[in-house]
């Protein structure tokens, strides 16, 4: 494989990886705080893309306005999901909330089918993102630069919120010990809502960019990327935001490279991630950067 080809695949891998990373952040933040696998997160990702479609076709918004609106609305949906389906179960056994999350996932997916139909929908893409540029020998899609850059900026914003604001301090406190945070006067429910909002907004951004890259919208489009992002979060160490980013990028990169180098294995592409999940859980369940959670006897 020539260097040019390698660079091209590298950019593709980075693009896919940053999309995974943006979703994985939502999983890891919610898990860090509530010990809940937010099964509906993949549908939040899907909704982000669908809201853009809705904005441009139903309300005739320009695409860039539609995108911003979609991110905001999706964040609202994420918060709503927590309020309705998870918050009443805070004191219930952990699996109850997970079953509720599975229910929400099916609900949102099928509601989208009811609203938009199950047929794949085409989404508008600005042409300049699709026109390959020639950089030396490398043919580069502007999209594969645009997506990682924007993702990086969003992550910088997130880091700022988590480490430089009072709300971020609250998040970190709750993820250490939710009960003590309560007693110390952290407004736990508001911070949890904020967490869901931020996680959902990032997932929506990822969904929208995903739609630019793979311009077919389908109600089930969230399942596989969502599951892989979850795997990325586990790989990076669930609860750790840098872990989610690193895990996402590594997973996306490996996936593209594996298919590029071993085209025969393309059929096993989706199985690869699941095998990875099982392997991590067995060998190092705390992932690359996660803290150890232990059960007391």
């Amino acid at each position: 494989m020539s260097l040019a080809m390698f660079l091209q695949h590298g950019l593709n891998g980075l693009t896919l990886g940053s999309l995974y990373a943006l979703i994985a952040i939502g999983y890891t933040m919610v898990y860090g705080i509530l010990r809940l696998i937010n099964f509906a997160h993949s549908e939040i990702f899907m909704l982000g893309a669908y809201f853009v479609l809705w904005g441009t076709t139903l309300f005739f918004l320009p695409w860039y306005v539609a995108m911003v609106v979609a991110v905001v609305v999706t964040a609202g949906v994420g918060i709503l999901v927590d309020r309705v389906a998870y918050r009443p179960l805070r004191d219930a056994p952990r699996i109850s909330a997970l079953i509720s999350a599975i229910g929400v996932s099916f609900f949102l997916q099928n509601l989208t089918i009811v609203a938009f139909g199950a047929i794949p929908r085409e989404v508008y893409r600005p042409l300049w993102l699709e026109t390959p540029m020639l950089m030396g020998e490398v043919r580069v899609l502007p999209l594969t630069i645009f997506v990682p850059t924007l993702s990086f900026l969003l992550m910088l914003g997130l880091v700022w919120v988590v480490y430089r604001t009072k709300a971020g301090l609250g998040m970190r406190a709750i993820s250490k010990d939710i009960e003590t945070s309560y007693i110390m006067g952290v407004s736990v429910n508001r911070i949890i809502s904020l967490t869901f909002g931020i996680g959902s907004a990032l997932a929506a951004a990822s969904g929208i960019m995903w739609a630019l890259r793979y311009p077919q919208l389908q109600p089930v489009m969230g399942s596989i990327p969502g599951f892989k992002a979850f795997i990325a979060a586990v790989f990076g160490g669930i609860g750790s935001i840098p872990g989610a980013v690193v895990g996402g990028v590594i997973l996306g990169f490996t996936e593209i490279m594996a298919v590029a180098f071993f085209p025969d294995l393309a059929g096993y592409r989706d199985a690869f991630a699941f095998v990875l999940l099982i392997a991590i859980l067995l060998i190092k369940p705390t992932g690359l950067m996660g803290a150890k959670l232990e059960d007391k006897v």
Partner: protein
Amino acid sequence: MQAQRTILNLLAAAVLGLFLWWAEGHLDGYKIQILNLIAVNIILALSLNLIYGFTGMFSLGHAGFMAIGAYVCSVLILDPAQKEMLFILEPAYTWVQQAQAPFFVAVMAGGLAAAFFGVLVGAPLLRLGDDYLGMATLGFAEIVRVLAINLPRVTNGALGFKGIPGHANLWWNYAWCVFTLFFVVRLVASNSGNVFKAIRDDESAAKAMGIDVFRHKLLSFSLGAFFAGVGGALLGSLVATIDPKMFNFVLTFNVLMIVVTGGLGSITGSVVAGVVITILLEWLRVVENPLFIGDWELPGIPGMRMVVFSLALICIILFRREGFMGKREFNWGWLLRSLGNKAGRHGS
């Protein structure tokens, strides 16, 4: 009381037999199909309840075990000539081509194959905590699906099998259903059943009581996998067509829905919810098909069925987490007493 109970159980079985005999002669194909699905869904619900409701292992791998059961059974009951026609992507391996077995043996083989995979998958995975176990078993089910697509010489790839002989009639399905019920009831009532529940309630305490937790988890998991495989095998023969797409997460979701609705750790709940939800699932198909009122067409709403069902699941988890039966069970003494009371009241 023991002898009385045995007689009542036999009577109930006889009534079921009479009902099936009547149904076979008087109900149309659609209704019989629903009855068949009820039996299969009860088998599946009981098997998941054994794993999750009684032993506390949150498994989302049911579709995987069902797929294994369905494929193994189908390969064994399709006749070689049929298989030659079916495998158009790539020719089947000779052993796949020539494998043949009577229906009972084929279903059994499907169950055993699923149980074998249950041991294989369970041995490493059952050490995981509850939510991680769920995700890992879901991963297993997806891997089974990917393998089914990518092993065309065994599974005919994405096309799957068509024209699977429909041996799974009312009698076979209900025989397996009653056997599963009998098996699970006996198991749960035994001291091994107490041990399963102990592991569910407190694993550390169970260990301190001398229980080999891992061995019992593996036992419960592979027994559950066996019946999931049986259910899958029957389902394959019942619907005559299987392909990898059929064994997706929705299948697991439906079984989970039945178990949670009926009550985790209630056999009665699984049976009752199996009947009710299967009927509802079929009945709600109506909303997805166009409806004609005279000349006037009401368009069907695709997706509506699962919207209703997922909403129902969320509501049950939010407002009645223990399901309709909690952990309670039906027993004859209870029924007789309540009948006796009524009779007494009428008498006075």
